[in-house]
């Protein structure tokens, strides 16, 4: 008991905001730690199954259906297989970096999970218990900071492998991550402007107070964030670092067995985390729609569980969306990827910050209070911007399939060359 008390005293020195009911808080944190990370890792494992199943269904196949009922134990079999596989350590690699890299990509993916709020606070008999592991005051800045550490794993894997394809994958990933992190950060600033705070709890509360999700009030930011999130998690259509058809498998070419599996788990973990982030930042998080009972600080257990379910449903939807997009779109070309990031997303995000800030100032000057009307005006403005942006984007000027448009004279010359060639082959008599 005295150790626990001295631990409490030490924690209070480290963090003066320690809750008063230390015992229940510690216990609740341990339970949450266990539950959240178990659910997370099982969820990640089942995301791999979902990926295989959904890809199969989209392609008219059944997908894995041999292990367990309807293939439900497939992730287990995959895990066992990966453990049993031969662990190769190629002689030409930089050993320390080679071994370190999978861990470096795996750990940041897990860490971000700690700050996602999973439900309304529970007014338990032992005091209020928040349904979040670490209610960090720096909120989504933490996800940006830690989430981008994951790129070190990929870059070091590419470098340590001492293999040109792996290195190319690592380089691509570093360039891609840096480019899209900027637009990702910029697309979060409108949320910060609206919520006035970076903690995820205040973002959720702001959406509940406005009775409109951020996806409606900040639709442009949502589109930018969504695209950046795909790029950040290296998912198709932005899986440049892997690009099987170009780079073997990119940064994890030299990896085998569980080390390879770590990269895979990290990818899926990032995907699940980003889905949770999208759900929290833009889709109201755990807030139960059309009900205000859950917004009053701490609530009863059934409401907490309901809010859990709401959050889980949103996260599952976005995981599905990730997979769905992957099996729909082909991979971008690298220069298209860069021009999308720098020439389209970044200017749009920057301009949008100005629009949101001035709109807020204007509405406040007009005396419109935060609420439904405020949100609806935002929605209208967003619809207009989104329409204009998409029409411009659709003209193929920003991200053209070719590098630039050919002039009429050049086109005529090229067509002449083609015509001459056709003529030649016809005369040759085949």
């Amino acid at each position, binding site marked *: 008991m005295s150790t626990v008390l001295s631990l409490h005293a030490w924690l209070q020195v480290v963090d003066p905001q320690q809750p008063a009911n230390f015992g229940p808080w510690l216990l609740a944190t341990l339970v949450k730690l266990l539950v959240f990370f178990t659910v997370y890792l099982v969820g990640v494992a089942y995301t791999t199954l979902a990926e295989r199943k*959904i890809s199969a*269904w*989209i*392609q*008219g*196949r*059944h997908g894995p259906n041999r292990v367990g009922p309807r293939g439900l134990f497939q992730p287990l079999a995959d895990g066992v297989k990966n453990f049993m596989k031969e662990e190769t350590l190629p002689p030409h690699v930089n050993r320390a970096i080679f071994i370190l890299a999978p861990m470096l990509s795996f750990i940041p993916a897990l860490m971000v999970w700690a700050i996602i709020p999973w439900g309304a606070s529970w007014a338990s008999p032992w005091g209020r218990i928040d349904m979040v592991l670490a209610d960090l005051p720096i909120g989504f800045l933490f996800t940006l900071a830690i989430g981008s550490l994951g790129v070190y794993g990929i870059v070091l894997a590419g470098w340590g492998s001492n293999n040109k394809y792996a290195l190319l994958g690592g380089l691509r990933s570093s360039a891609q991550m840096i480019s899209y992190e900027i637009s990702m950060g910029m697309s979060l600033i409108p949320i910060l402007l609206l919520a006035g705070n970076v903690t995820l709890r205040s973002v959720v509360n702001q959406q509940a107070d406005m009775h409109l999700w951020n996806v409606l009030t900040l639709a442009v930011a949502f589109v930018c964030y969504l695209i950046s999130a795909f790029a950040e998690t290296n998912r198709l259509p932005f899986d440049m670092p892997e690009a099987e058809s170009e780079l073997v498998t990119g940064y994890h070419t030299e990896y085998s067995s569980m080390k390879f599996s770590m990269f895979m788990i990290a990818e899926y973990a990032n995907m699940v985390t980003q889905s949770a982030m999208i759900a929290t930042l833009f889709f109201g998080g755990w807030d139960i729609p059309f009900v205000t009972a859950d917004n009053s600080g701490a609530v009863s257990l059934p409401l907490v569980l309901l809010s859990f379910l709401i959050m889980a449903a949103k996260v599952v939807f976005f995981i599905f969306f990730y997979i*769905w*997009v992957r*099996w*729909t*779109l082909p991979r971008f070309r690298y*220069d298209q990827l860069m021009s999308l990031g720098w020439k389209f997303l970044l200017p749009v995000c920057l301009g949008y910050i100005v629009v949101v800030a001035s709109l807020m100032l204007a509405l406040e000057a007009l005396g419109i209070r935060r609420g439904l009307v405020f949100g609806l005006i935002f929605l209208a403005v967003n619809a207009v911007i989104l329409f204009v942006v*998409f029409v411009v*984007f*659709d*003209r*193929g000027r920003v*991200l*053209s*399939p*070719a*590098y*630039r*448009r*050919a002039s009429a004279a*050049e*086109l005529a010359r*090229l067509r002449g060359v083609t015509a001459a060639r056709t003529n030649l082959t016809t005369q040759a008599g085949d």
Partner: protein
Amino acid sequence: MAINVKVVDRPIEETSYVRATLSGLGNTFKHLIDPHKVTVQYPEERWDISPRWRGTHRMLTTEDGKAKCVACGLCPTVCPANCIKLVPGEDEQGNRYPLVFEIDEFRCIFCGYCQEVCPEEAIHLGRHYENSEYSRDGFVYDLERLMAQTHPVCEMWDPADPKGE
């Protein structure tokens, strides 16, 4: 951009990203909910193979259970893969029979010439494709094993009925 890249002025409908993406998502979703699957669930479901399917061999037998083979030596002669080993023997009545008749199914290219050339219609290719063994030796089929096979035999190509109808 690299040189020598042909740049084509495409109409907007072809260069569109947003519309193409949305229609693509719609298309994949349509396939996602489509219950029709093309996969054959192999061990439970089997593919209907052609009557002319050329699989592992079998040796047909006479009514008294002997191989129809008269050890004429045509099949090892015609075999392009050299996979048939035949040692002829002769009994008291002067009837030839195979002392050793082995087919190495690993060497065999399943061309079916042995079946075509056989005057006694003894050796046949069969409508059978599930060959797996624990050792390479297991793929050398001797006469007893060839006679013990029960799968249906491959039908020969009939010029009068080229499509097998």
